[in-house]
């Protein structure tokens, strides 16, 4: 019983030894500890070993830093501004290209052949109309070929193969002459070019002024878009481990 009591007292005293070493006990507690130590060798040994440990720890010096940990302002603001300018320029070029293409489609811009038929000026005939005109002109100047052909057939002698056989038109019967005259050929060619929107790359023809702008703007959009995407990806991957940080190590 006394042994149990003494062990409990030792446990309590040992629990106070760190504070005793650090001089954090009040006067009453300090006296109680010192009184116990005077009569307990085990606790005195415990105190000495703890004190030696603390003494060794007190001799540990701080290790010098391997480098300075001061911070430096990164350049995210400037990079962000540059990136936003690139994005704006890309968007502007894309918008200009879109407006030009839409204007081309609905023929908002004068002098440019639209992509659809309905935009043709009324004065410019289509190919079919041009040919109809040619046929009508030929009819007027050369007479009604059907009557002549019919008359010619009636007058033609019977073939040695009998009636009903196919007859070639007799000599002298006029046929509509479809050989295009030079000025009509030129008009037809121009109408064809307008109708099918030539000014394209086919056949190595010269690109019209607005078509050139389309190509240039398309190139600008592609280049700016590529640069913007490249810089964005670099910023995201390069700053991956400092994502969200605006400050970097100096």
């Amino acid at each position: 019983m006394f042994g149990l009591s003494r062990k409990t007292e030792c446990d309590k005293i040992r629990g106070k030894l760190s504070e005793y070493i650090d001089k954090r006990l009040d006067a009453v507690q300090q006296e109680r500890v010192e009184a116990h130590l005077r009569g307990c060798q085990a606790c005195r040994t415990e105190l000495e070993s703890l004190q030696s440990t603390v003494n060794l720890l007190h001799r540990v010096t701080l290790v010098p830093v391997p480098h300075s940990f001061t911070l430096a302002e990164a350049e995210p603001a400037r990079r962000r501004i540059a990136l936003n300018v690139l994005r704006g320029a890309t968007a502007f070029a894309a918008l200009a290209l879109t407006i030009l293409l839409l204007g081309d489609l609905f023929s908002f811009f004068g002098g440019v052949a639209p992509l659809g038929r309905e935009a043709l000026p009324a004065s410019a005939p289509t190919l079919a109309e041009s040919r109809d005109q040619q046929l009508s002109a030929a009819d007027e100047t050369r007479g009604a070929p059907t009557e002549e052909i019919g008359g010619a057939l009636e007058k033609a002698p019977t073939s040695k193969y009998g009636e009903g056989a196919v007859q070639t038109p007799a000599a002298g019967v006029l046929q509509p002459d479809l050989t295009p005259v030079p000025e009509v050929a030129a008009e037809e060619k121009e109408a064809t070019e307008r109708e099918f929107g030539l000014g394209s790359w086919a056949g190595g023809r010269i690109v019209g002024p607005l078509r050139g702008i389309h190509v240039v703007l398309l190139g600008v959009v592609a280049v700016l878009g590529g640069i913007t995407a490249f810089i964005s990806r670099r910023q995201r991957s390069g700053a991956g481990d400092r994502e969200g940080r605006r400050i970097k190590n100096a």
Partner: protein
Amino acid sequence: MEEARLIRGCQAGDLAHFNGLVELYQQQVYNLALRMLHDTEAAEDATQEAFLLAYRAIKKFRGGNFKAWLLHITANVCRDHLRSARRHPIGSLDDLGPDVQIQTRLTGLSESPEDYALRVELGQVINSGLATLPPDQRLAVILCDIHGLTYEEIAQVAACSVGTVRSRISRGRARLRDYLLRHGELLP
């Protein structure tokens, strides 16, 4: 006071003032991280991260013990690193070669080369002994006996009561003492 002026300056957004505080405390922060993590590379990362977090949170500092506030951030960063290391163990500390041994220097008066070697070896043993303590006890012993903080400051760093600090210091010292006795380094 210089520290108060620097704190006011960096709370106003002046990075140069914050760097003044960095220069004042970087050795303490780095050494705490070094002994908590027992790894120089991890300690550098933790120190860098602690100062970055401190810079971002500087406006939330409402006065008081700035050193304890900064070491509190450091302790939290170290705790996160230790948790991450437990989830992804990289091997025993005994596997580290001599190049990775943390040089723990002890102060010594004029001494012979043999005493110097003994002192260096003892410093390494102390460091190894600290690494065997549970993180909470390790933090308490390091802050008390190496960094010289009071129990109240340690309570602020560890975000616990003074009574808990007292208990952790007592148990941590006893465990370290037992480790040193087992390795024959502690002379009675």
